[in-house]
């Protein structure tokens, strides 16, 4: 029996196909429709209990139409009737006529799609709100049961199931059903008037197999480890960046430098550095959209290019940049299938407009994967005479320059190969491009984030400034 989600998808898909056929009869160069239909069940946690339970059904389509070769317009709608979908296609056409030229604009041609495994689990779609509430409560119990000093501040359990599809006038017509499950838990600690900073853990899955006990205990351990911090005098030396720190600030620098559009604008620090050494030999980084059960895996990107694995940096040497159809066409290179309608980052326009069918695609990684090293994290730490372990830092990288100056939010002094105490205050500052060259070790484990699968990185000669 078709679900409400499937019914909405079939209706939308039918309208969109009709509109694409109508647009084909106009004087256009290309037309494209990106459509999604999703159902989200979400439970939010606040102050150790369930705050709200939400459910959202959302469907919509975004049209891109090119006229006179490369004048492009975009319009979208979430109104699920034939007239509104037709009007959105017409608006995109009308906007294209008054737009300016986008040099080298193109869309992918139809080609063979290989289905990536593990992107759909019917149990996610079937998860009830009662089961979602239970997962949230188990996470709360696990965190607060780990130690009495741990207080759950906030959290979310989210199950998403939906359809994603792309149709264009070059023969692309693909659709994919996918599911996602997410558990986020944030906690703080309190003891004798001492309050720790917030810690959080995240579990991202394509299946319904969220492990609330694991997440709860992880956060509990993090919080307990932060009591009685001490100020560290300013320091320059070996720093191990944990996966959380790597996935945010360091990956932001990587992504900024690897985006094809930044190469075209010559604002990437790695412009014209193909085949050159840009990082330590210890670093190999790929963009892997075909990773089984990968959180950002997909069989085709968001403009219909078949997914692939792209080696970006091999043993420190730069091999490829990230491209979508137009950027690849501009620099006459292969499309790396990195058109994304769900990019990360803090772009204000993107946040106002929204993701998915509401916006045109941008270049963004699928799963940015750091190749595992051959030593465990403990071994990497054990080799440090005196250093700092930075699990989490608050702050961000400056666009282009790779400059990072961030406040230490969960960091520890390492001495004699062992963790001594948590560090109070302080900032880490430096240029991430230099840090990539100074990587002396990569751990043999990794953690999945929204668009990355990353390990701990040991980096030499990093500056930490005391409060």
């Amino acid at each position: 029996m078709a679900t409400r989600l499937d019914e909405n998808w079939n209706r939308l898909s039918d309208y969109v196909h009709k509109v694409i056929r109508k647009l084909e009869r106009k004087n256009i160069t290309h037309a494209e429709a990106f459509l999604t239909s999703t159902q989200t069940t979400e439970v939010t946690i606040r102050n150790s209990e369930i705050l709200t339970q939400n459910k959202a059904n959302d469907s919509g389509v975004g049209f891109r139409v090119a006229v006179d070769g490369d004048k492009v317009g975009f319009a979208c709608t979430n109104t699920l009737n034939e007239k509104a979908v037709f009007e959105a296609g017409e608006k995109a056409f009308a906007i294209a006529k008054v737009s300016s030229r986008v040099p080298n604009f193109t869309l992918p041609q139809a080609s063979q799609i290989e289905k990536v495994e593990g992107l759909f689990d019917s149990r996610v779609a079937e998860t009830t709100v009662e089961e979602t509430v239970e997962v949230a409560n188990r996470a709360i119990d696990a965190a607060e049961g780990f130690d009495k000093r741990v207080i759950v501040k906030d959290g979310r359990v989210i199950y998403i199931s939906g359809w994603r599809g792309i149709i264009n006038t070059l023969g692309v017509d693909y659709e994919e059903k996918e599911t996602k499950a997410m558990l986020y838990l944030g906690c703080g600690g309190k003891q004798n008037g001492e309050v720790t900073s917030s810690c959080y853990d995240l579990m991202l899955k394509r299946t319904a197999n969220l492990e609330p006990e694991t997440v709860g205990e992880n956060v509990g351990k993090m919080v307990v480890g932060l009591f009685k911090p001490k100020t560290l005098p300013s320091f320059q030396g070996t720093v191990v960046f944990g996966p959380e720190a790597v996935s945010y600030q360091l990956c932001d620098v990587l992504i900024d430098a690897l985006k094809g559009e930044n190469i075209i604008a010559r604002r990437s620090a790695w412009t014209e550095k193909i085949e050159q050494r840009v990082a330590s030999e210890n670093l190999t980084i790929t963009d892997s959209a075909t990773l089984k059960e990968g959180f950002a895996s997909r069989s085709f990107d968001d403009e219909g290019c078949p997914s692939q694995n792209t080696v970006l940096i091999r043993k420190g040497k730069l091999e490829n940049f990230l491209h979508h159809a137009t950027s690849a066409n501009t620099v006459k290179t292969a499309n790396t299938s990195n058109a994304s309608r769900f990019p990360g980052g803090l772009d204000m326009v993107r946040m106002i407009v929204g993701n998915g069918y509401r916006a045109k695609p941008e270049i963004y990684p699928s799963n940015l994967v750091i190749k595992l090293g051959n030593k465990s994290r403990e071994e990497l730490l054990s080799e440090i005479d005196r250093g700092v372990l930075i699990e989490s830092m608050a702050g961000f990288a400056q666009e282009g320059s790779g400059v990072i100056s961030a406040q230490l939010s969960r960091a520890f002094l390492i001495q004699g190969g062992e963790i001594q105490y948590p560090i109070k205050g302080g900032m880490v500052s430096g240029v991430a491009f230099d840090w990539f060259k100074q990587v002396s070790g990569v751990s043999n484990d990794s953690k999945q984030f929204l668009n990355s699968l990353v390990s701990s990185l040991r980096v030499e000669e990093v500056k930490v400034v005391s409060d």
Partner: protein
Amino acid sequence: MTTCTVKNGVIEEFSNVSLSGVGVRVLVNSKSWGFSSTNVLDSESAKQTLLDAVKLAKAASKLKKQKIKLEPVKRATADVILHAKKPLHDFSAEDIAKIPLEAYKGAKEAGPRVVDVKATYIGIEDDKYFLSTEGAHIHQNTTRVLLLVDAIAKSNDILCPASENLGHSGGLELFDKTSPYSMGKAVAEKAVSLLNAKAPPSGKFRVIVHPTLCATLLHEAIGHPLEADLAMSGGGFGDQIGELVSSKLVTIYDNGNVKSGLGYLPYDDEGIECKRTVLIENGILRSFMHDRTSAAVADVSPTGNAHAWDYSVEPLIRQTNIGIEAGDYSLEEMVEDVKEGLFLEGTFGGQADVNADFTFGFQSAKWIKNGELTKELRGANVAGNAIEVFKTIDAVGKEAILRPGACGKFQFAIQGRVVPAIRCEIMVGGMG
């Protein structure tokens, strides 16, 4: 919503975003809220959405420890229409495209070292209806316009970014005072001037925080801990109502009725009238920002701060137009009392914890030596605990400026900030 992005002279994105839907929230057993939304606007789908919301609310009702006794509200009926002087529908698509194109042209005037310019126009027209079983029937029609300009200047391997945002509730009269051309030019000139600047030093300094950066500091690091939901989950202000929590020179308020502010909304999304709420008065904590639920828990009246970004998300406690009351100091007077310090300008955004720990990027700085502004320095980050930083404020500027702002607390929002310059002590994480 219409957006038009010009990147390096090319209209990279020209979009029309047309969205509609309904969100239903129900409270069952005076304990548990359930929220459900749909974009399918027929009676069957609306009914199903209501049933879903009830089911969701019941799912956690038994587990709730505390009853929520909402304060009764007056039966509100209102039809609020913001009349723009230059309404968006009076302008053609070509007119709209000219706005970011002009900003780009201005930026290119700053010279060949400007390598990357992005200018985005956003025009939002919003029709919102709020109906409740308590008899509320509120219609609010608003128009908001923003222009965002980013520029990057390059010399050899050095890249320097600069950016500025302009925005208000209203129409295209936004550009009567500041033209897109002049805004683009100013941003790019800033990026170019920073190419020759050095990095700022590291350490704790006496600084003057320009309103452009003060807006971020106020919203992120002081504003969030003043939101009751975050305060109740261990926020930095705890339960210190009536206590001195800041410098006596500081009075902070939130006001949804600042008409040109991006957070202008006479009613919140629980049907409560938005008023001016004094949060900190001469350094003393007076109130948090509340929705009806947090107000019931704290046994106070709601303050009109429950807002949802759109129909698909539940209302949350959000700032509207948060502000610091202007003080007595001119910028010159603030500078002349500083022997050695920094004047920090512009923001690259930032993040803050509920305990008020923050890290923000500033775009540029000027070194202050013996009461005078001297060499220009590049941007870096500042960090610390905002409550501690606000205790060190010893001067507040006499001109409060309305700034556009954005917030990503669980869901997106655009808001206003009304901020003067402040002088305080802060930790700078520079590279110099």
